């Protein structure tokens, strides 16, 4: 935001160009970008190199901690296998469906709690209490209830990503600008109109912070549920490779998992940047 002190200047010159007063970042910004990516990349290369050396020289037992290059080879080999892509697809499906169900459900319930006093009094305390119990402990129960298939994984993923979104929705609705509310009320806006035109858009930046947490949690939920009991998915692959002492392959799946997580997070952030373009202002 421009400072108030440059108002007269702008007013006098009439119509400044679109970029007036928003120039500075050009050069430092470019350098900032390089720095932002270069340093973490160099650090990563260094750590992988260290890992390789320590494994190859026998400081690490090669069977338990295979060298980085072996993991890389395993990853390339896996990429050529159909069963790997099938497992990846299963896990991604569980994560996404669970994520969407969890977010939509939490958004609806959070809105009810945030907007309707009755729901705040009755449901909110229970929600907080339930939030404190570790949801991962529910995985065996869900397995019993929903079976070995994809459903129990979806339910766990949805349950885990439910709370951060719900809390974000309630908090964001609680902190909607008071003056904005006064203004809408002065126009005689109904609660629904006030919600649609003020509270909903105003809540988006905070809600998206919750959603970004939720997307990573959904992946955790899917994998944990697969660990507890499943016949397919990346979690199953990791367990199987570990049992067979194919540690390099196990590592490779974990790296693939990290990539899946990054892509899902990236997509969420992309949607956020499109939808909440005013964030930070």
């Amino acid at each position, binding site marked *: *935001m421009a400072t108030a002190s440059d*108002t007269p200047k702008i007013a006098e010159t009439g119509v400044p160009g679109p970029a007036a007063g928003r120039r500075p970042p050009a050069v430092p910004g470019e350098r900032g970008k390089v720095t932002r990516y270069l340093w973490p990349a160099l650090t990563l290369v260094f750590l992988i190199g260290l890992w390789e050396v320590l494994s190859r020289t026998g400081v690490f037992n090669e069977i338990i901690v295979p060298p980085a290059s072996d993991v890389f080879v395993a990853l390339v080999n896996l990429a050529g296998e159909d069963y790997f892509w099938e497992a990846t697809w299963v896990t991604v499906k569980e994560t996404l469906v669970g994520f969407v169900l969890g977010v939509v459900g939490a958004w609806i319930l959070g809105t009810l709690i945030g907007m309707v006093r009755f729901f705040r009094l009755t449901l909110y305390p229970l929600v907080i209490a339930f939030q404190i119990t570790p949801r991962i402990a529910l995985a065996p129960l869900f397995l019993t209830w929903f079976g070995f298939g994809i459903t129990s994984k979806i339910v766990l993923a949805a349950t885990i990503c439910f709370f951060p979104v719900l809390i974000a929705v309630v908090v964001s609705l609680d902190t909607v600008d008071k*003056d904005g509310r*006064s203004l809408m009320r*002065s*126009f005689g806006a109904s609660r629904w*109109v006030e919600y649609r035109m003020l509270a909903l858009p105003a809540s988006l930046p905070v809600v998206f912070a919750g959603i970004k947490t939720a997307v990573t949690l959904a992946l955790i939920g899917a994998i944990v549920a697969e660990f507890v009991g499943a016949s397919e998915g990346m979690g199953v692959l990791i367990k199987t490779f570990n049992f067979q002492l194919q540690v390099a392959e196990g590592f490779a799946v974990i790296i693939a998992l990290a990539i899946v997580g990054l892509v899902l997070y990236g997509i969420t952030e992309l949607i956020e940047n499109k939808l909440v373009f005013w964030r930070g202002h």
Partner: protein
Amino acid sequence: MANSTGVEAEQDAVSAARTGSSPAIEIKDLGKIYQTRHGAVEAVRSATFSVDRGEFVSLVGPSGCGKSTILHIVAGLLEFEGGEVRMAGKPANAGRRDVGIMLQRPVLFPWRTVTQNVLLPTRVFKIDRRGEQREAVRRRAAELIKLVGLEGFEEKYPWELSGGMQQRASLARLLVFEPEILLMDEPFAALDEFTRERLNSELARLHEQLGRTVLYVTHNIQEAVFLSDRVVVMKPRPGEVLEIVDIPLERPRRIEMVAETETAALVARIRRKLGFEQEEATHGDG
């Protein structure tokens, strides 16, 4: 101001009904008590004054004198305990098309462009629905944006504007649905001195041009004198009206008038009334 009795109030109402021109804003014996954790706080005690149609009246006084509370009550945004508030003969109520409020902060929605922000009230009032209406409202918004000096910024977002420009957009939004009565709660208090002076002289011009009724809240005595036809002087704890001062300065008001003897005398009088004589050297206009 003496408290008027019920009979007097009734007679006033009858005479107003007979002449068919009730004042734009009529406040009688208004009382407001806030319930806080530390007990009840009397924010306003038996305030009585009225604002005629087309008149510019300022409420002036230090923080806690209840001036802002009165404005919010008049806007229908706050309940009150005692007395009577009538706007153009009808009880104060939110959602009236003939009343608009402007706050100290611009309160522009960051997801809406300047034009969309200016059009906000017309969307809530649903006067942008039918084709020709929509066209008229849009034309009006464009004219107002020009009037407040934001031409060329129509499609900018609020965060791309300076504080002064944001408050100009807020002013255009206030005027877009053509309210008869404008309620302004320290609209320029958060701006720097130069911008505020500039916007005040533009507001004076706008008021003289459009002839709307204005109730203006400020803690700046000079600003109140420069803008107003009458100044309601208030004191805090409890908020009470001390005096209503006529401002017989000629219109149109020009910014140079601030330095003239007549203006200075009025400012000094209000200042004395508020008991600022001793503090003057250290405090400025409080």
